[in-house]
């Protein structure tokens, strides 16, 4: 009803900040308090965060990485090969020929690699287990011992020993695990001390959007005090520390650096210009060259820059904030500077190009409001006034700070000696050498003072209180300075002994450029005035703020509302409040009192027929098919008992003759929105229309009008069937290829043995939200996965999306977003003169096209799938395409259309490459995000005994292929509590858990696995049993019902696992059941439902159709034929909640009635309906008219 119910679900993404004392705090997007970083013993100068981790430079000048904890471990597989050769005497033995490879080697055989030679790379790793032999060979189990055989090294290995097998080898595996999570892990410096980078003064991480390979790859850039720029090699998800620092040549000495999520990298130079990295791309994430960008005003050099995907913000020495116009991948330098309002110490660009800054005067963190893709510069700065969760430490420090200030007094200035002892002390302990080395380095840099007056509030980048106070004092007192001899530390640096005698003011001056000062000028005053935290640094690289995000950062929240904010599926306090109960109760009593005895009274206002009329367009039934204007009227009757029924009339002209068709809404089985850029339309199905595969399609002039009609018709359909509120726990859930979610209440006779209800009579209603996969169980636990792999849990609400107001539940509806890619293809033909060009043959496809080549799709004219989607990226080359690509993304073939490969041969005359562009949808629905792990697949145990206290088994596959088991899932807490990682030797793609805790899974190599000993007591089971796939097929999905196990292969074949018994749960063989299957769902009654690829109707062909296996019985689990339900355009179905068994006494008459009624409805050519039963294979005839299907995939 109100917008508040749309309070977005925010995965708790974090804003990181450092206060002037070096303490690191995080502020969650859903939170209201700054929380002190869990590992608080270190003090930091700089942090740079992304979602999964944060890098920082601590006051000991060491670099640390803080990897956020996750239920999925970071694992790395070490492997080495044991090689043997056969000789007539001893058989296979360790004795190899002199020309052979090492007995222990890497896969190539070139590197000697003993088991013991593989050691943990840093103290932050631990071994998961000991070495073991890999007995899986390309999805097939090997003989005992894991040996694979070949004629000679190097060669193709096979699992079978042949007469000519002279050599063999086997793979040893050992996993190591990264253990330093939720803590600051020091980046080890193995490097040669001579090349050891001098202490870093700035650091920035980003670049995760440049490429997905390896997973979680990051660009980590750092600037040393000497102004050199360093790049950390090999930082990625499985290697969070990276391997080594490499020096990147620069045209000048850098001061500060900023790396965006994609290919932008800017750094500031001592001279006040910025340098911009050019040539960063997937093949060269380090880039190739630098360009110089002059500061906006020559006298005020750039002090600080921060970059996003396509924005650059800068702060000049006079603290003015600047926005760079015209920045993008092709022009990373941009075009010109625009001055922004406000004075900042620094600014930071985070996710979605959102911007944060630290105010110059008050040291508060500011958030730039109103930054949108169309208005990247935003509107205003708004101060974040969230409190710190724990202010005790704050007061403590403040007093120590003041006392420190008192202690040092005014005399401190100019007396280098008073500073020296403490410095040497700390540095010799190497515990907090940060500030020391920094002093030292500034002296080493021997920079002349540009001006003698203090620029802004320059001071040290350290965070020691005494030091801070000291520099503040120095700052506070004017420019009277005396030369000071600064002490040396034990850090070995070149060039250090140069011009050490410089005025202290000068150091303050210069260092203020290298690192932002920690204090503003009037420090004491500013501090005393109010006790809000004073910040030194902020990083928004891990903080997701979107236009619909509601932040609670800008008001001080009272205690009560804090508890109200907690988003959870449990009933909110407001709903259980006594006042609410009282109102419900009193209203009931009132109605009883005032109405009960007076029902016979006449109503003052008579109920009447209500008609909604309008003008729509209708996709005409006759040829040539086209959109024609029609008048439509919906007549709603209210019966005496309050029930409603409705008829939809469509009035049209046919050969200048007025005609109409009418549809009883209680016969409508589904209404499907069909959005494309051309038409705002929807499709209406009845059982008859489903058989024809030819729905009634209606289009409205505007999207709003279409949704008004769709919402009204949907509500009327539900009303006429007396269906309202949340779906029952037995409901069948499905998803279309557009991501729309539909749910159907199963009738008792749906799974009847004889005369089951035909599934084209099922009524489907839409539930708000956008998903790729939805899975349910009979306890009402429903999970979904979005196109962007986000996991969602059903909240128990209904409506959302375009169902506004009354068609939607007031609570449990949240914002939901999804991201998917739109693909277009660039096609080129080779000619002998110019090589590959975009000039094709006259007969060729468009040079920019869709996948088929039939439709022209250029970068400019390709639009997001509908108005609801907005572009969130630019076009980029997609390298993740089957067949592989070359370095530029091209795939080659002899001619169009053909199968493509990722390398050029002599026979190839055409090539193509795929471009992708991300678009995003924001909608609402009864779904809450289950952060933070993204999922590929999910399965919930179909049902367990009523009242069982065991938590509900839920298994999932992460988007990285990890197998996960969810703990703590129950009816009351469907989201569960945490993930338990189940180790595997390779990535998995599908998982399913059956009614008796039989867990089956499919690995990426196409073979299946059975998980042994899974039980409520042992939720993750004990070990995997390898089950070979059907011959020459790669499995892609598995579904386990009560006892049945079905699997689906990549060629659309459906397989039944034969020979499963309680004592032998793995079964013995795969039996072929059907082809033409896209998805399968086995229910708790072992019922078999699939999405069929193609189904021929009487009028048209549909792709993606719900089908139900008929004749499935305990004795005949494979069933006999298919019954065809709703489609095309359906992509996923889950029947795993439907435990509704047919009543024994389902009267035959009603069934007969149903049948006869369906036949009555059919008019005209109801040809071929009877043929829909008893087909053992899903039919797939020659293509007729595909455009009849409303939704095509």
């Amino acid at each position, binding site marked *: 009803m109100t*917008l508040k119910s749309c309070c977005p679900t925010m995965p708790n993404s974090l804003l990181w900040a450092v206060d002037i004392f070096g303490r690191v705090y995080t502020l969650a997007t859903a939170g209201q308090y700054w929380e002190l970083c869990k590992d608080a013993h270190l003090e930091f100068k700089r942090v740079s965060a992304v979602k999964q981790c944060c890098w920082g430079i601590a006051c000991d000048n060491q670099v640390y990485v803080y990897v956020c904890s996750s239920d999925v471990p970071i694992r790395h597989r070490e492997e080495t090969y044991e090689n043997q050769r056969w000789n007539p005497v001893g058989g296979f033995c360790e004795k190899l020929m002199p020309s052979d490879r090492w007995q222990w080697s890497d896969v190539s055989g070139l590197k000697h690699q003993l088991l013991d030679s593989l050691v943990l790379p840093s103290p932050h790793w631990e071994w998961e287990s000991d070495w073991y032999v890999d007995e899986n060979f390309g999805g097939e189990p090997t003989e005992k011992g894991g040996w694979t055989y070949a004629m000679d090294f190097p060669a193709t290995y096979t699992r079978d020993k042949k007469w000519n097998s002279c050599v063999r080898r086997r793979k040893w595996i050992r996993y190591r695990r990264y253990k330093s999570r939720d803590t600051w892990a020091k980046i080890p410096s193995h490097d040669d001390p001579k090349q050891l980078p001098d202490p870093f003064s700035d650091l920035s991480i980003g670049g995760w959007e440049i490429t997905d390979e390896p997973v979680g790859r990051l660009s980590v850039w750092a600037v040393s005090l000497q102004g050199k720029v360093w790049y950390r090699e090999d930082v990625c998800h499985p290697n969070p520390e990276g391997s080594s620092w490499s020096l990147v040549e620069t045209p000048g000495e850098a001061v500060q650096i900023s790396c965006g999520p994609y290919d932008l990298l800017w750094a500031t130079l001592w001279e006040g210009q910025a340098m911009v990295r050019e040539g960063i791309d997937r093949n060269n994430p380090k880039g190739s060259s630098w360009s110089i960008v002059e500061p906006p005003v020559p006298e005020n050099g750039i002090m600080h820059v921060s970059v996003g995907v396509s924005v650059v913000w800068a702060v000049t020495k006079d603290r003015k904030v600047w926005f760079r116009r015209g920045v993008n991948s092709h022009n990373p330098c941009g075009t010109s500077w625009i001055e922004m309002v406000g004075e900042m110490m620094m600014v930071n660009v985070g996710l979605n190009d959102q911007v944060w800054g630290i105010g110059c005067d008050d040291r508060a963190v500011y958030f730039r409001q109103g930054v949108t893709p169309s208005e990247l510069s935003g509107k205003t700065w708004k101060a974040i006034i969230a409190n710190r969760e724990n202010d005790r430490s704050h007061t403590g420090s403040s007093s120590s700070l003041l006392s420190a200030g008192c202690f040092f007094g005014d005399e401190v200035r100019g007396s280098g000696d008073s500073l020296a002892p403490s410095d040497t002390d700390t540095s010799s302990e190497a515990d907090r050498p940060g500030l020391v080395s920094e002093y030292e380095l500034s002296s080493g840099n021997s920079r002349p003072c540009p001006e003698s007056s203090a620029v802004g509030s320059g001071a040290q980048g350290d965070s020691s209180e005494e030091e801070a106070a000291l520099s503040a004092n120095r700052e506070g007192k004017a420019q009277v300075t005396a030369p000071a001899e600064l002490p040396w530390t034990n850090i070995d640096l070149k060039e250090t002994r140069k011009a050490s005698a410089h005025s202290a003011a000068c150091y303050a001056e210069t260092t203020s450029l290298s690192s932002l000062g920690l204090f503003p000028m009037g420090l004491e005053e500013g501090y005393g005035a109010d006790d809000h935290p004073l910040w030194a640094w902020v990083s928004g690289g891990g903080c997701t703020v979107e236009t619909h995000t509601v932040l609670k950062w800008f008001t001080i929240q009272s205690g009560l509302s804090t508890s109200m904010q907690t988003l959870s599926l449990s009933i909110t306090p407001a709903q259980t409040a006594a*006042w609410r109960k009282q*109102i419900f109760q009193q209203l009931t009593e009132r109605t009883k*009192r005032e*109405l009960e*005895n*007076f029902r016979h*009274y*006449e109503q003052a206002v008579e109920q009447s027929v*209500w008609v909604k009329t309008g003008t729509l367009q209708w996709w005409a039934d006759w040829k040539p098919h086209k959109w024609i204007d029609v008048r439509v009227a919906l007549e709603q009757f209210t019966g005496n008992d309050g029930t409603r029924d409705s008829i939809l009339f469509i009035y049209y002209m046919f050969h200048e003759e007025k005609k109409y068709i009418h549809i009883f809404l209680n016969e409508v089985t589904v209404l499907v929105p069909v959005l494309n850029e051309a038409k705002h339309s929807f499709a209406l199905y009845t059982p008859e229309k489903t058989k024809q595969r030819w729905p009634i399609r209606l289009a409205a002039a505007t999207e709003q009008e279409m949704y008004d009609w769709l919402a009204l018709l949907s509500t009327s359909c539900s009303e006429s069937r007396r269906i309202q509120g949340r779906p029952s726990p037995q409901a069948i859930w499905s998803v279309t290829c557009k991501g729309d979610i539909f749910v159907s209440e199963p009738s008792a006779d749906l799974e009847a043995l004889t005369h089951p209800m035909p599934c084209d009579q099922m009524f489907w209603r839409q539930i708000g939200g956008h998903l790729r996969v939805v899975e349910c169980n009979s306890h009402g636990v429903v999970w979904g996965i979005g196109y962007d792999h986000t996991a969602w849990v059903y909240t128990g609400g209904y409506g959302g999306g375009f169902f506004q107001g009354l068609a939607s539940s007031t609570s449990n509806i949240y914002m939901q977003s999804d991201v998917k890619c739109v693909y277009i293809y660039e096609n080129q033909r080779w000619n002998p003169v110019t090589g590959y060009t975009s000039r094709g043959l006259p007969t060729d496809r468009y040079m920019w096209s869709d996948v088929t080549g039939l439709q022209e799709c250029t970068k400019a004219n390709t639009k997001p799938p509908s108005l609801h989607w907005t572009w969130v990226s630019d076009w980029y080359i997609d390298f993740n395409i089957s067949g592989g690509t070359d370095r530029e993304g091209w795939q080659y073939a002899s001619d169009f259309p053909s199968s493509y490969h990722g390398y050029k041969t002599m026979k190839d005359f055409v090539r193509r490459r795929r471009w992708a562009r991300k678009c995003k949808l924001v909608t609402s629905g009864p779904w809450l995000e289950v952060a933070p792990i993204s999922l590929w697949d999910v399965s919930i145990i179909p049902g367990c005994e009523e009242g069982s206290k065991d938590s509900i088994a839920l298994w999932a596959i992460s988007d990285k292929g990890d197998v996960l088991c969810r703990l703590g899932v129950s009816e009351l807490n469907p989201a569960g509590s945490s993930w338990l990682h189940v180790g595997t030797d390779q990535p998995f793609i599908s998982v399913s858990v059956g009614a008796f805790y039989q867990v089956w899974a499919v690995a990426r190599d196409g073979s299946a696995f059975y998980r042994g000993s899974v039980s409520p007591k042992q939720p993750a089971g004990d070990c995997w049993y390898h089950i070979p796939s059907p011959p020459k097929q790669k499995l892609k999905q598995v579904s386990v019902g009560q006892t049945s196990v079905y699997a689906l292969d990549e060629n659309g074949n459906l397989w039944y696992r034969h020979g499963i018994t309680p004592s032998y749960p793995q079964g013995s063989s795969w039996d072929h059941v059907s082809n033409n299957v896209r998805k399968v769902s086995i229910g708790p009654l072992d019922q078999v439902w699939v999405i069929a690829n193609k189904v021929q109707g009487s009028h048209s062909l549909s792709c993606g159709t719900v089908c139900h296996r008929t004749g499935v019985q305990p004795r005949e689990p494979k069933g006999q034929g298919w019954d065809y339900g709703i489609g095309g355009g359906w992509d996923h179905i889950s029947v795993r909640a439907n435990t509704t068994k047919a009543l024994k006494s389902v009267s035959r008459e009603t069934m007969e009635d149903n049948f006869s009624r369906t036949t009555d409805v059919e008019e005209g050519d109801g040809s071929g309906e009877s043929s829909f039963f008893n087909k053992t294979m899903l039919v797939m005839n020659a293509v007729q008219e595909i455009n009849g299907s409303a939704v095509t995939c």
Partner: protein
Amino acid sequence: MTDDKDVLRDVWFGRIPTCFTLYQDEITEREAEPYYLLLPRVSYLTLVTDKVKKHFQKVMRQEDISEIWFEYEGTPLKWHYPIGLLFDLLASNTALPWNITVHFKSFPEKDLLHCPSKDTIEAHFMSCMKEADALKHKSQVINEMQKKDHKQLWMGLQNDKFDQFWAINRKLMEYPAEDNGFRYIPFRIYQATTERPFIQKLFRPVAADGQLHTLGDLLKEVCPSAITTEDGVKKNQIMIHGIEPMLETPLQWLSEHLSYPDNFLHISIIPQPTD
């Protein structure tokens, strides 16, 4: 579980069984039978009494008929107050049906407004709506609506079409997500015991400290006498739509769910019945 939306339905479909009797001094040709009707609480007397008028006019001479008006126990009933409010204020805690006397003569000019046609009711209703939205959203929502939306609101009320009315009215019940409620709560407090027609002041749904204001907070502020107690016994009933919400009920919630169609919370303060 019961949904907040059910409250809207219950409020909308509230009915008061009423017995209309012709005033004894009215001149009739035949004896006038009383007329029984279920009156919608959220509507207006003159909007829903066409049947009553017709019924009594049948027994009267044409020349004796002038503008109809209603009276309960000597008090003329203001047609521009919602029916539920009139009942709560004047007749709650009495036996049902509600006995209303029908007059065709001696229109009490000083007590009642004339109601020459339904347009008058519509004008009054829409002006209340606009006033309420001025308080809630600085009139932004109602002004952004089209003429047909305004018409739909009125037709929804006139024809007792809940869905039709709420399809539009929900927009008036929204507020920006960053606020915790409306700008001001449109409310009117009526007291049976005073001459003053009603109390109406500016009152925000959220306190300066971010806490939600409750019904109790409102009364404490604008009508403290209503919630005074004597020896721990409540002196008054605080009534909306025939129920007594707890003083802890958040005002914003009340405004969203228990407002009359004119978007005002009409709150009746009536003396606690003695028994």
